């Protein structure tokens, strides 16, 4: 480890912007970005599963609120949602005196809530489309076996719907990674926040932002290849026959 650090220090010698300290900022920013994106995607995914089933419910009082939620969160900019939740929480009278303030004081939680709700809305629509495109024959077969609605959902519809949703969900993950850059607007030191800090400190926009852009590009490609690998594994039966 020490050898590595020494090597890095030698490599950076004579470089006034990319010192160990600024690289540290970028490193912390990367961790924050990954944490934020990963947590919001995970919670959003968990929320989206029941929502996507409810989105197709026959009862209007279940279906319509979910439709409205998706419509609003997909139709307005994430930045507006972030501002709404961030300022909405901060300006509640007396909140600063309660225990809640300990959690909400940092902008991380409001940002996480905004991102989670946003991705939940998009993911719900993705799953909804996948559930709707389940072949009719599979549903009839499940009914003919005497499966209940729940059992059919669990064993037949959801597993194949998840597979079909995979390519679209991969896009959503990349979209979320890119959208997370706006966390820096509410003073979170994510990757973009680190780049803004380095820019402001050294007045070197090209170095500061190109470096961040390169890291984002690598992350994007990593996600892309991960989903390609998953698709290759999980959707192998849908591949067109070769030879």
């Amino acid at each position, binding site marked *: 480890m020490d050898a590595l650090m020494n090597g890095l220090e030698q490599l950076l010698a004579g470089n006034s912007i990319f010192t160990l300290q600024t690289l540290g900022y970028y490193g912390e920013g990367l961790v924050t970005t990954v944490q934020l994106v990963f947590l919001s995607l995970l919670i959003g995914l968990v929320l989206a599963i029941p929502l996507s089933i409810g989105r197709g419910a026959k009862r209007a009082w279940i279906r319509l609120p979910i439709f409205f939620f998706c419509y609003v969160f997909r139709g307005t900019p994430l930045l507006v949602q972030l*501002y*709404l939740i961030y300022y909405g929480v901060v300006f509640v009278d007396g909140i600063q005196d309660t225990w809640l303030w300990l959690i909400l004081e940092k902008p991380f939680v409001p940002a996480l809530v905004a991102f989670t709700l946003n991705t939940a809305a998009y993911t719900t629509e993705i799953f909804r489309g996948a559930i709707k495109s389940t072949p009719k024959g599979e549903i009839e077969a499940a009914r003919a076996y005497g499966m209940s609605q729940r059992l059919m959902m669990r064993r037949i519809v959801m597993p194949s719907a998840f597979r079909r949703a995979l390519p679209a969900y991969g896009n959503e993950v990349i979209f979320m990674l890119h959208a997370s850059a706006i966390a820096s607007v509410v003073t979170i030191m994510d990757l973009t926040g680190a780049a803004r800090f380095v820019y402001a400190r050294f007045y070197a926009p090209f170095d500061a*932002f190109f470096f961040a852009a390169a890291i984002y590009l690598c992350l*994007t490609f990593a996600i892309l290849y991960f989903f390609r690998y998953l698709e290759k594994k999980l959707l192998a039966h849908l591949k067109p026959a070769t030879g």
Partner: protein
Amino acid sequence: MIDLHGYGPRLLEGALVTIELAVLSLILAIFLGLLTASAKMSRSWLLHRVGTLYTTIIRGVPDLVLMMLLFFGGQIGINMITDWLYDQFNIDIFININEFVAGVFTIGLIFGAYMGETFRGAFLAVDSGQIEAGRAYGMTQSLVFRRIRFPLMMRHALPGLSNNWMVLLKTTALVSVIGLSDMVRVAAEASKATREPFTFMIIVGIVYLLIASVSEWGFARLQKHYDTGHAEAN
């Protein structure tokens, strides 16, 4: 009645800025998208590479980072060029990038990449027999493009185009971060000053939904226009 604390007129101005920004960037994006699609479909190896590089990089980097890069970096870049012009040729010009221009350029540049993909797919979907027929009539290359390829391509491109437009519209909110007084920035300032974030942010959200609904209606009409002759097939 909702009390806007006198921010009403400024919000309205902000909404106009948002719409202007969105429409101008859409025009730039369509132009760049057509160029990119042509480059990616061209036989030239170099043009193909450049087109692919452009779409890959733009689609791999967050909008906000690109916007800051172009806004903060663009001024320095332009100053470097004008300084060089002054040193070399004694030409004294001063170009100032304002937030609006930077916003239009970045959003146009970002969505040009997305449009390029949409247009490329749509161009490939045009029946080559139609183009041959046009040539057989003795039309020039540009006339074939104007009268045959473009209208036929638009039919396939419109769903993707309308999708890109909706995303573009929401992306315009980001210019508030680099300092342009669009709807979102006015609402954010008002929220901070009056401590009533819900009033302002919900109004802004509703305006976005309204613009989206109106443009959805517009795209449906356009689709009907470009579907002429295909309507029965569906």
